[in-house]
């Protein structure tokens, strides 16, 4: 799901930096106002956790691989705005030091993996958990469902962004200039393996950790909000 450089046109990559920049500003504001001082170390730990989780590649049907991200889990623990910060920094280190995901594409990758995934997953978690609290079975199931939905929505966004490239940027004869695959190719190629395998991995990771921490460390779950106050 990490878009490398060269797949998005420079214009598209720039637009995603323009979209992500105000989101990053809101993320900083939310961390400043809402993240308790004592939880700065937790955010740091969760950022590193996400970096490591993304190293565990799982074979997918079709001969490719995928991995969970921990993005929805982080959103459940410290809120989706702080999750955006954690994911952006993990993605930034991956792009800068490990050549995983492009530097020009970092705006897009942060938007997909750092914003869309945690927010979509967190929304589903909040809707499904109802009045359940940490340690309740429903709380953990809502977390698992959030993880599943979050990674799949993000995969769909990536597929659409890649699939739009040949429509937006091509030679007069129609030859694509950047990512060469049409939407009819990118959507099934991205979404199907995530629906089957990577989504399950994210669901198990999110639900499992939420169940464990909810039982043994319920104090870690603070009341989160979607709005950076």
């Amino acid at each position, binding site marked *: *799901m*990490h*878009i*490398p*450089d*060269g*797949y998005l*046109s*420079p214009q598209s990559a720039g637009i995603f930096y323009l979209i992500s920049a105000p989101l990053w500003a809101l993320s*900083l504001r939310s*961390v*400043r106002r809402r*993240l308790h*001082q004592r939880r*700065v*170390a*937790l*955010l*740091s*730990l*969760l*950022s*590193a*956790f996400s*970096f*490591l989780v993304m*190293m*565990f*590649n*799982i*074979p*997918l049907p079709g*001969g*490719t*691989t995928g991995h969970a991200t921990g993005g929805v889990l982080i959103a459940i623990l410290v809120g989706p705005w*702080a999750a955006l*910060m*954690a994911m952006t*920094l*993990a993605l930034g*280190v*991956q792009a800068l*030091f*490990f*050549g*995983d995901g492009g530097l020009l594409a970092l705006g897009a990758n942060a938007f997909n993996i750092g914003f869309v995934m945690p927010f979509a997953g967190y929304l589903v978690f909040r809707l499904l958990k109802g009045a359940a609290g940490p340690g309740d079975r429903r709380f953990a199931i809502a977390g698992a469902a959030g993880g599943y939905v979050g990674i799949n929505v993000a995969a769909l966004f990536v597929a659409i962004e*890649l699939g739009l490239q040949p429509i937006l*940027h091509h*030679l007069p004869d129609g*030859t*694509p*200039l*950047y*990512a*060469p*695959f049409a939407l009819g190719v*990118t959507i099934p*190629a*991205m979404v199907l*393996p995530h629906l089957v395998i990577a989504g399950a991995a994210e669901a198990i990771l999110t639900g499992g950790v939420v169940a464990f921490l909810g039982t043994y460390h319920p104090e870690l779950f603070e009341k989160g909000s979607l709005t950076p106050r």
Partner: protein
Amino acid sequence: MKYRKGWIVLLALAILTPLGIIAAGGAWGEWDLDGVKEHAGFVPEGMRASTEGTTESPLAEYTVPGLDKGFFHQGLGTIVAAILGAGITALIAFAVARIAKHGGIS
């Protein structure tokens, strides 16, 4: 240290990362130019141009220079890359969150 058990879990994850790179093949749509040619039949012009002149990161593919020969060395290299990457991420996140909260690191 705050969240001591959590950091221990991270260390355990880092030591297990060699298991994460066993899976054959890369992610769909994350190929290098050779991979694009293989999957699309050609390398789009803009794609070639925008990757020209870029050098591969020394730690690309989560390998460490000098630790890339043989099964054992590769595994060790992956663990070193994992600890480096996770450590750098944690430090930057700590600094950014700290500065956001206090306007300074100390």
